[in-house]
């Protein structure tokens, strides 16, 4: 093992431990704000692993999109639904956790044996490296042109759909506005969880 491989192995171990530890903490910490920040640590460690895999453009995209957009979006969502509530205890919650942990452990063992026993056809040609961004551009505008355009349409649809779903239905001071400035929607009643659970019990 020469020096470069040693450095690669050590950074892989550090990044993987950081990624898996932060992911476990995301799932297990009781405070949702901490888990949102730890999710950013997971995404940053993933970007480091992409750099180890000779993909600098995708690492930059990972930082920009995941840490810069999705993580901030999740933090804003946490602030908007910031309600400190103690969830009502559910019967047999520990059974659910134990069964889920067993299923996930079994899934990991299954995937692990498959990964280790499969004879991978490793291609030993030199990796694209910094040329990767040119090759990616060629792919996007030749053989992956249709998916590329469809993704742009999908992003537009998601943008409009998110606005439509998250918009408030009524403007609070609707009377102060003229009639032509009002949104033509009826105010909906608040369907509270308490009322529905009472009606269920009746």
């Amino acid at each position, binding site marked *: 093992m020469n020096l470069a491989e040693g450095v690669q192995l050590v950074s*892989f171990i550090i990044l*993987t431990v950081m990624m*898996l530890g932060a*992911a*476990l903490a*995301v*799932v297990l910490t009781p405070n*949702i704000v901490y888990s*949102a920040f730890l*999710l950013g640590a997971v995404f940053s460690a*993933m970007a480091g*692993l*992409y750099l*180890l*895999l*000779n*993909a600098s453009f*995708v690492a930059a*995209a*990972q930082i920009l*999109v*995941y840490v810069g*957009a*999705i993580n901030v979006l999740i933090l804003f*969502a*946490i602030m908007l*639904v910031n*309600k400190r509530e103690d*969830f*009502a205890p*559910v019967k047999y919650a520990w059974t*659910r956790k134990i069964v*889920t*942990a067993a299923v*996930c*452990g079994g*899934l990991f063992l299954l*995937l692990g044996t498959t990964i280790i026993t499969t004879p*991978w056809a*490793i*291609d030993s*040609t*030199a*990796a*694209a490296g910094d040329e*990767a961004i040119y*090759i*990616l551009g060629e792919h996007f505008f030749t053989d992956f042109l249709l998916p590329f355009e469809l993704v742009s349409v*999908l*992003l537009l*649809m*998601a*943008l409009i759909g*998110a606005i439509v*779903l*998250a918009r*408030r239905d009524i403007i609070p001071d609707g009377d102060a506005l003229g009639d032509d400035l009002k949104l033509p929607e009826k105010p909906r009643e*608040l369907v*509270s*969880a308490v009322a529905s659970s009472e009606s269920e019990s009746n």
Partner: protein
Amino acid sequence: MQLQYFLLAAAALFCIGVYGLVTSRNAVRVLMSIELMLNAVNLNLMAFSNYLDPAVIRGQVFTVFVISIAAAEAAVGLAILLSIYRNRDTVDMEQFNLLKW
């Protein structure tokens, strides 16, 4: 450095995501678990792209697509979550049984 290390790390991350998806009570944490699973799949694609297809790198193309679709999914999912919170006044997954029966 071997392909198997990356694949094992991705499998562990995917299993953590599945565990969080099933056991979380808070709906925001469920969305975070979905992001973890998508990242595990991305790591798989990138490892295959580097070790099995290093000259043509189709795996990186798929990773870019998955990243953009994950962004769309996060936006729409959080919008749905805000809408549910406004109607039901809670983010507890156990209370979201509007379509159950």
